[in-house]
């Protein structure tokens, strides 16, 4: 007897061994390398980097391997590592117009300066399982030089319009600006310095900069569901995909010693600008509004969902009626993080003997009182025999 709370230590050790074994799987199958994950599971790597809040493809791939492909667990591993990293400064804000674009589409104009670049996308694949992939090594050296990178996406059948290297590609929403049709996102010199969510606790009311930081780290599934809800009438604001672009951008940092900015590396990022309706008011002429999404790597679903949610959360600032949870800043930001959510949901696995014992004691007491009341009220109703458990209690 009394084995329930003993042996926890040995059980944990045994659990670790089993976990290692389960992660490795059948040892007759070759071990998966981190480099393979990085190269061949690039979309998983992108998600882990985005929500893990660290741009490091190798560490993200390692986390995916260690987590046996559980991306939320991998995100958690990367975040826990991130905590220990010192912060040595801030880079310059990136300018996505300077992006070396791999893919860029707009749903608002048939053609735009710089063209529509389809790039690598699952969008127009017919979702038929490709059984050829079952065969090992079939795809070596199969692809041709250019075919996948840049195809024409517009209605015309013209050849692809590849972006000349080094040429900035203007954003679609900036084109609308010439007519004053859309609000513009410009840094205002007197604007407050954005906070840093990884260094300051989330507080409410939250500025848009803080909200975007939260959403960028937010769970893709949560944002997808909430963004979807906005399309179904929960805070509808009629979105158009103004522009989605994916490509590589240089990161620059000012170095005090040099007095100049130097490039410290490249990022692959996905950016989405949604164009949404706005009725205007007596003092402001009607103009389109924006929702914004940004993610590391190739993460279009995430960036688009983020843009929808960002727009919904601007309801208060734009004077819209708050009628839906998707517009409730505190509700959305407090529940978007999957590291927090996963931890708290799963903490229910931890022992709660003491709380439960307290509740047991209370429920028994209340039931006894209830029974006593019933007996007093109507004696014939007392013998229900509904309390066998309490009768069997004994101190062993």
């Amino acid at each position, binding site marked *: *007897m*009394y084995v*329930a*709370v*003993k*042996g*926890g*230590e040995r*059980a*944990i*050790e045994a659990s*670790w061994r089993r976990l290692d074994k389960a992660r490795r799987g059948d040892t007759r199958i070759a071990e998966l390398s981190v480099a393979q994950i990085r190269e061949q599971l690039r979309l998983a790597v992108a998600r882990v980097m985005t929500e893990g809040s660290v741009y490091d493809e190798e560490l993200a791939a390692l986390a995916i391997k260690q987590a046996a492909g559980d991306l939320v667990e991998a995100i*958690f591993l990367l*975040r*826990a590592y*991130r*905590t*220990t990293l*010192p912060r040595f400064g801030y880079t310059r804000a990136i300018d996505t117009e300077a992006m070396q674009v791999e893919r860029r589409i707009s749903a608002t104009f048939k053609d735009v300066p710089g063209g529509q670049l389809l790039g690598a996308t699952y969008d127009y694949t017919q979702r038929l399982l490709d059984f050829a992939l079952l065969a090992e090594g079939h795809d070596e050296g199969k692809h041709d030089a250019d075919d996948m990178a840049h195809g024409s996406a517009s209605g015309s059948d013209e050849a692809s319009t590849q972006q000349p290297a080094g040429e900035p590609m203007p954003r679609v929403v900036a084109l609308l600006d010439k007519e004053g049709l859309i609000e513009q996102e410009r840094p205002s010199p007197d604007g407050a310095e954005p906070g840093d969510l*990884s*260094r*300051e*606790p*989330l*507080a*409410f*009311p939250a500025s848009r900069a803080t909200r975007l930081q939260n959403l960028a780290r937010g769970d893709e599934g949560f944002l997808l569901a909430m963004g979807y809800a906005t399309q179904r009438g929960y805070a509808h604001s009629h979105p158009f995909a103004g522009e989605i672009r994916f490509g590589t951008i240089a990161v620059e940092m000012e170095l005090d010693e040099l007095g100049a900015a130097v490039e410290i590396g490249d990022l692959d990022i996905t950016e989405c600008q949604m164009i949404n309706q706005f009725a205007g008011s007596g003092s402001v002429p009607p103009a389109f509004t924006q929702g914004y999404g940004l993610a590391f790597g190739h993460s279009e679903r995430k960036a688009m969902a983020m843009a929808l949610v960002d727009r919904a959360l601007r309801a208060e600032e734009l004077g819209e009626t708050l009628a839906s949870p998707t517009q409730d800043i*505190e509700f959305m930001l*407090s529940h978007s993080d999957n*590291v*927090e959510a*996963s*931890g*708290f*949901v*799963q*903490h229910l696995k*931890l*022992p*709660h*003997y*003491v*709380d439960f*014992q*307290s*509740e*047991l*004691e*209370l429920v028994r*007491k*209340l039931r006894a*009182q209830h029974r006593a009341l019933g007996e007093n009220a109507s004696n014939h109703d007392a013998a229900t025999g509904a309390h066998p*458990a309490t009768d*069997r*209690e*004994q*101190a*062993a």
Partner: protein
Amino acid sequence: MNAPDTALSNTAATGTSHDSAAHGYNFAYLDEQTKRMLRRALLKAVAVPGYQVPFASREMPLPFGWGTGGIQVTAAIIGKADTLKVIDQGSDETTNAVNIRRFFARTTGVATTRRTAEATIVQTRHRIPETPLTEKQILVYQVPMPEPLYRLEPRVAECKKLHALADYGLISVKLYEDIVHHGSIATTYDYPVIVNHRYLTSPSPIPKFDNPKMHMNPALQLFGAGRERRIHAIPPYTPVRSLDFDDHPFEVQKWQHACALCGSKESFLDEMIVDDAGTRMFVCSDSDYCHERRGDGDIESPAPLLPTARQGESA
């Protein structure tokens, strides 16, 4: 006392074991800047007893909801001379307590103990030890939800206002409604308290049985909520009152049984079902208290540090 531990961080990593000393990490895992941030929040919390101080909670290598707040508080205050005890549900042996104790053994190399009296820091989840604490001890609570009003008002911004105005009518109405519905207050754990005659405070989900131990306790009591990013504190010898009404005074749980192992009639008892017929057995939830009372040699010494950790510590 918390200078970066170069000895730990410079030793070569030894494979991918889940339990080797944590090489490449600072003493107690967190970097010194983060500890400083935490200590500032702690000082503020001690200065304003019962007030929830927001802090920039970090992701820890254990999941949110599993004690990250308590772990961060412990990491911020622990020094090499400390002796750490970790309990969950009153027991040193529950899996999460074992895990957190190992975490600090790996990242600090400090001595760990199962004896309440030997510990300088006791990190706890859901209990206050039965053995009275002293002025030399710090009790660190793991807190899932620091806001005592959250079931009544989920909006954090709104709760802040209520605390600022000391407007605690909501909770009194809730307790009153309990009495109307059930004939008594139906809160059995996480029972709200007023700290230092001012702030309504969550004691964390300890059973209300433990609430009286918070009142005028000689030990410093620190509460860390990692996921909710708030810290609060009860300094030594601070009055803590459990909410009640004149005609429905606060009372604690009582058992008709004594502990089946040590015979205590004063301690909080866990109920166990020991056979298919549903036979119950009641045993002290505080495992150290129970061992001490039995005075048997059964108590095992804490898990020894692994050799790798020892080397790292002494190098």
